[in-house]
């Protein structure tokens, strides 16, 4: 009886939960579709269907267990990876962010010039028969008219109400917008073209002035090109995300759109010296940085492990202090070190009695980065080396001692090779981790020092990942396409290193 009630209750809870989740997702999917985000909307619909099918039928028991995990992985890990791959094939950067349709629309809207006299009128915004309209006061000619995007209606002077400056405030048939709606109306009115005369139209400059202007560029859909109405220049799709003048100046129209350029982001990295040289420099420093970090942290950690590998007075105290750098939140530690390296007041200069501008000089900055990373990383290798030392059978060492080997020989011929064998997967993993140690670089030196005057993006301590971040978000031109291409190259590099490490640790064998 009890179990029946319980299972009924469980069913009700389950049904309610499922209904709630599907309702929320459905709402999201709908608004995604309304915003023309078809891929995201479609994904959400698939999620809803999968969820309902999985939990309402008995089709697949395993799926009941891992569906939520898989969905999260697909949504926030796999799809960003795929999107990165896609972006790397596009000309996706500042000036080429929007879609082509949006770019055409923006070019059309921006392409107008004021008439030669620079005529402007005082206006009042409002509605005419429910449509957006403006009431224009041509004070000079004492003429008043209402204009919408479709027609122009003259208004006899008798039918307008003027203020002291002869500006019409309202007119018969024209509903002025209430003051409290003005701010919100800005986006609806600006950018609209109100009828004026022939090729000329009225465009709003703020909320109470309109200027007379005419269109300079017209879009010819059949030819997919823009034509300048004044000088006749034709601008065509140059295949790289911009409309470009066919002859003469080769000028391009702003904005461009994100256009597929296939492998250009990659080929540029290997053939164009402006991209290749910094990339090679950064790559070399990344390898040096990661290797130096692994070497120094491992060396110090191992030395400590050896020193403390025997009952010793105060060993527990040593041990608990030595792990502190590893236990501290690394963001805090790095920021603290940043303060210590301060040129004017920093503790390091005070302690050494020097006046070194650590982060202004390339080599000092590099030294500081490695030193701080040594501080952050040595406890890890101390801990794992201690563990590994315990794992080396004592008989082996005793046998060597009986055979007459001295301690140094025992260490060099037996302990070290065995340790390296045990720890090599961890050394490789540490290399892979430091290869992408973004936080350290970003928080300590910001990749600098860099020569920004020459427009340099790569700094002296920039590693590949922080360089990528600079390209994507740091500099004035945000080049997401190029950044994605570098990201994927890093992934292939680090992925191969990690796979090699995993092979070594034989994790894959345990699958069978």
């Amino acid at each position, binding site marked *: 009886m009890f179990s029946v009630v319980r299972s009924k209750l469980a069913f009700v809870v389950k049904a309610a939960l499922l209904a709630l989740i599907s309702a929320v997702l459905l709402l999201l999917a709908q608004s995604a579709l309304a915003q023309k985000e078809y891929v995201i909307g479609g994904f959400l619909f698939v999620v809803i269907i999968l969820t309902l099918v999985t939990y309402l039928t008995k089709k697949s028991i395993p799926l009941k267990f891992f569906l939520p995990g898989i969905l999260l992985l697909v949504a926030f890990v796999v799809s960003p990876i795929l999107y990165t791959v896609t972006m790397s094939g596009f000309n996706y950067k500042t000036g080429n962010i929007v879609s082509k349709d949006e770019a055409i629309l923006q070019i059309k809207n921006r392409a107008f010039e004021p008439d030669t006299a620079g005529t402007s009128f005082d206006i009042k915004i409002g509605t005419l028969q429910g449509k957006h309209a403006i009431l224009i006061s041509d004070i000079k000619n004492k003429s008043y008219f209402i204009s919408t995007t479709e027609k122009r209606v003259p208004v006899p002077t008798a039918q307008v109400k003027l203020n002291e400056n002869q500006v019409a405030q309202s007119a018969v048939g024209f509903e002025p917008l209430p003051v409290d709606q003005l701010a919100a109306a800005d986006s609806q009115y600006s950018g609209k073209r109100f009828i004026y005369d022939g090729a000329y139209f009225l465009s709003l400059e703020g909320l109470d002035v309109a200027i007379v202007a005419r269109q300079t560029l017209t879009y010819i859909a059949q030819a997919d090109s823009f034509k300048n109405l004044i000088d006749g220049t034709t601008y065509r799709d140059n295949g790289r995300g911009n409309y470009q003048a066919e002859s003469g100046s080769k000028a391009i129209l702003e904005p461009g759109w994100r256009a597929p350029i296939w492998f250009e982001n990659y080929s540029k990295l290997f053939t164009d010296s402006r991209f290749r040289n910094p990339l090679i420099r950064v790559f070399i420093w990344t390898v040096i940085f990661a290797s130096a970090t692994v070497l120094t942290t491992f060396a110090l950690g191992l030395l400590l492990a050896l020193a403390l590998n025997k009952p010793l007075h105060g060993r527990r105290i040593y041990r608990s202090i030595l792990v502190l750098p590893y236990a501290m939140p*690394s963001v805090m530690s790095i*920021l603290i070190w*940043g*303060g210590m390296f301060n040129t004017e007041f920093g503790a390091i200069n*005070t*302690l050494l009695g020097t006046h070194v501008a650590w982060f202004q000089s390339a080599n000092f900055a590099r030294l500081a980065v490695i030193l701080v990373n040594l501080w952050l990383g040595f406890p890890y290798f101390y801990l794992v080396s201690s563990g590994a030392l315990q794992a080396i059978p004592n008989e082996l060492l005793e046998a060597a001692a009986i055979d007459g080997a001295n301690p140094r020989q025992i260490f060099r011929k037996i302990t070290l090779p065995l340790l390296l064998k045990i720890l090599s997967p961890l050394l490789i993993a540490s290399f892979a981790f430091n290869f992408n140690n973004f936080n350290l670089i970003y928080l300590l030196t910001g990749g600098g020092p860099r020569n920004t005057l020459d427009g340099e993006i790569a700094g002296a301590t920039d590693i590949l990942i922080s360089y990528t*971040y600079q390209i994507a978000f740091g500099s004035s031109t945000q080049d997401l396409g190029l950044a994605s291409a570098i990201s994927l190259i890093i992934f292939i590099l680090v992925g191969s290193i990690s796979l090699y490490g995993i092979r070594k640790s034989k994790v894959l064998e345990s699958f069978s």
Partner: protein
Amino acid sequence: MNKWLKQDLWRHIVAIITVLFAIFPLYLVVISSFNSSGSLQITSFVPREFSWNNYKLLFTSPAIPYLTWMKNSLVVAGSVAFISVVIGSASAFAFSRLNFKGRKQGIQVLLLVQMFPAILAISAVYVIMERVHAFAPGIGLGTQGGLILVYLGGAMGVNIWLLKGFVDSIPKELDEAAKIDGASEVQTFWLIFIPLATPVLAVVTLLSFIGTFNEFILARLFLVDMQSRTIAVGLQQFIGGQYSQNWGPFAAGSIIASIPIVTIFLSLQKYIVNGLTAGSVKG
């Protein structure tokens, strides 16, 4: 005496020098947090005064919404840790115990995916979440909800992988016995596996909490608004290059923020070290 010198002296020297190196920055932060002038400048390495000024400033100054940042960090890291372990353990259970087509391939894909450093896809995450923000302002770029979702996705790979290792180590006989008694897979999971694995799940939850608490770059990209920042982003922006001005409160703030993490870490040390070496020492 001579023997002691020969055998142990070098050990103590190595240990003491490294201890000094390890403790120096921490000591410095502690003494400057109690220095009322809040200056980065060290006039003496021996503390001259003891004042709670910087700490008081953290909780009273409107320029540093310290408590809000702390609360944000706890909420974000706490929910990510809890939810990711609940979801992750179910997936890990399936991968470890249930037989289904494509299980082996699934594990290999998982291994590959969890190797991809989240930071590499950061531009894609940024663009995607910016688009999400356009239709769902509650979970897009700039919101803690969106950040939690992205963290959850990122935590999945590692957590499933880690938990699968733990599930593998629980004897199979128990759930086989349950199966014979007529329990379904879902019942086995809730009634046998979860109670058995609770200590392990707690450890993984805490580890996941530390990891998320420490995360900086996604939080930096997502949480622009002063009131929504996590403690890591808040303190980094607060110090933001102006080390000399804000050093005192920063020192106090980073000490308070570190205490829970260091405490959790030290109490879990055994598990952390085991987890780090598992699979290597064995092989």
